[in-house]
């Protein structure tokens, strides 16, 4: 199989610095060629050869799954772009400030033709240090964009005091403790920090220090959006886990924005890695557990009104 083209999704509320970041990525001397999918063609100058106009057409899949929405225009554009294979190395999708990232992410799981040729590398969210606090109060999209992020660019740090910055960081962490966070001015990050992250390979979630998570939750609490991470220091039984997680995401899918996990299945030498967006789950056996690597099972949910206790009990009951 030829290598899949990595896709980076760039989200962020209006004025946070998305286009600045995009142009920075494009003009850095990396020798890479990008296909850029943007909304509102030509409004702001984008310094790239291959820029495609998107319509952000979201439609509901007619498959009985109420929150399974996808971006029809993306399916069409990626099909067209693949005809130009060899002309670009990666795809960047910039969404509008008001966009919900779910349909974009789900497109890469739901559409087989898209999945055959591309892989979602990371969702990168740019946030404005000064205005995020207000947006979290009045704009549900802003919260979704943080919850969905694999990488967060906390931008315009020069416009706030150190105390304010600490506060806004804690707010972000209360929603999404798992994303890589970079503090920037004028979206100045190294391209390596946002591109080719393989964030969806999920290795990272095993690295997160439980203490740090605890600390985040002590200091800040988002009433609406939470993350729950649960760990079993050993194997799980796939015959218990699979039905549980499927039933859970079917029932709670509208509230679960993202789910991720790395699991040790009893008797299985390979790690089982899964991720999900709302009701859609995508899992696969990946590399072998390395010798000396501790076999453990960990799952993470980010969502609204999550019942921490029930999730913990449910997952713990899957232990082998």
């Amino acid at each position: 199989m030829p290598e899949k083209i990595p896709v980076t999704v760039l989200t962020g509320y209006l004025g946070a610095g998305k286009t600045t970041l995009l142009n920075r990525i494009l003009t850095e001397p990396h020798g890479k060629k990008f296909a850029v999918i943007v909304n509102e063609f030509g409004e702001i100058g984008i310094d790239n050869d291959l820029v495609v106009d998107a319509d952000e057409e979201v439609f509901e899949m007619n498959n009985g799954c109420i929150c399974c929405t996808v971006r029809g225009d993306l399916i069409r554009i990626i099909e067209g772009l693949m005809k130009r294979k060899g002309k670009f190395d990666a795809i960047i999708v910039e969404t509008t400030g008001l966009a919900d990232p779910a349909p974009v992410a789900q497109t890469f799981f739901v559409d087989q033709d898209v999945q055959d040729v591309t892989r979602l590398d990371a969702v990168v969210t740019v946030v404005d240090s000064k205005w995020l606090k207000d947006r979290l109060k009045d704009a549900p999209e802003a919260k979704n964009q943080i919850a969905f992020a694999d990488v967060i660019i906390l931008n315009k740090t020069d416009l706030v005091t150190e105390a304010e910055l600490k506060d806004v960081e804690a707010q972000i962490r209360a929603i999404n403790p798992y994303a890589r966070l970079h503090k920037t001015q004028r979206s100045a990050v190294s391209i390596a920090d946002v591109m080719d992250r393989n964030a969806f390979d999920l290795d990272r979630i095993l690295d997160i220090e439980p203490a740090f998570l605890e600390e985040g939750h002590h200091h800040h609490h988002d009433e609406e959006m939470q993350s729950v991470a649960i760990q079993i220091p050993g194997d799980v039984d796939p015959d218990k886990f699979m039905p549980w997680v499927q039933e859970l995401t079917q029932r709670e899918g509208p509230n679960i924005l993202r789910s991720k996990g790395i699991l040790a299945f009893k008797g299985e030498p390979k790690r089982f890695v899964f991720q999900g967006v709302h009701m859609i789950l995508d899992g696969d056996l990946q590399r072998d557990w390395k010798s000396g690597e501790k076999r453990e099972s960990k799952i993470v949910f980010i969502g609204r009104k999550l019942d921490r206790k029930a999730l913990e009990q449910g997952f713990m009951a899957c232990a082998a």
Partner: protein
Amino acid sequence: MSTFTPSRPPDSLTKNVTPIDAGAHVVGAAFLGETGALALADGMIILRDEAGGQRAAPAHPDGAILVFANDSERLITGGDDGRVVATDAGGESHELGDEKGKWIDAAAVSSDGAIAWSAGKSVKARDAKGRVREWKPPSSVRGLAFAPKGYRLAIAHNNGASLWFPNTDAAPEALEWKGSHIDATWAPGGRFVVTSMQENQLHGWTLPDKQHMRMSGYPAKTRSLSWSHDGLWLATSGADAVIVWPFQGEKGPMGKPPRECGVRPAKVAQVAFHPKALVIAAGYDDGCILLCRMTDGSELLVRAPDSDGGAISALAWDRSGRHLLFGARGGAAGWLSLPV
């Protein structure tokens, strides 16, 4: 001309294939009279005659060809340069539409010389005299098909299809069915409109009574549809066999199972019914091509699997049914001349 006269039908026709190096993803194949035409993703059109004489027409010099349609004289191509171009067998190209850089998402040709194309949320029809009319669909459009008779266009979009008379001001007639509809085709007899859907199924409507026809069970999306010469069968891609739906009666395939032919451990990517016989050319996603005869299920190999060259992406018969032109995603192509 082939002088090969077999005493019995050969199992393989691979010796009758002349390879063509197209050099880019083949988006479409067509015959303009006796000239074969390959529309390529690098914006070029290759024109070739049976003797092997070949020339290239740069129909979209700054872009990629995304969609195509043709009649016996013109190949209509739509590109990511926003242009709609007609190219004849001599390689002469004329621009018929310009959407200012917006990708052309679909194209269609009618039997009386009209064409239609879509770009984003705009569908345009251009009659043989060059008059252009526009309709704004509810979502962007990837499937257009003219009625076999009369100036009427079927337009596939989200939550159904619309039937539009471009020469009237009347609102298009709505054919409703929830979901995202991709390609559209109109049966040669005019009684059925069929669309392919995002959800790995086909949907059809009988006309004028708008009875629904659901055709499901595909493991993948159907992106290639071809009617038999008598209009009684519809061959489709999207499974590990050609799925052929019967359209003999008033109700189309409802209550009748489809036929299958060319079962292989690879997905059918392209289908093309022979213009005179119940024989289907099937191109698979591993690069294999078979001819399948519906009457007895017999098969002939046209091209062996070629996993490096990618899926077959274009198939077309000439009008006589003696020549088959094909192309693959990886840029390989070929010309089959059937033994006489």
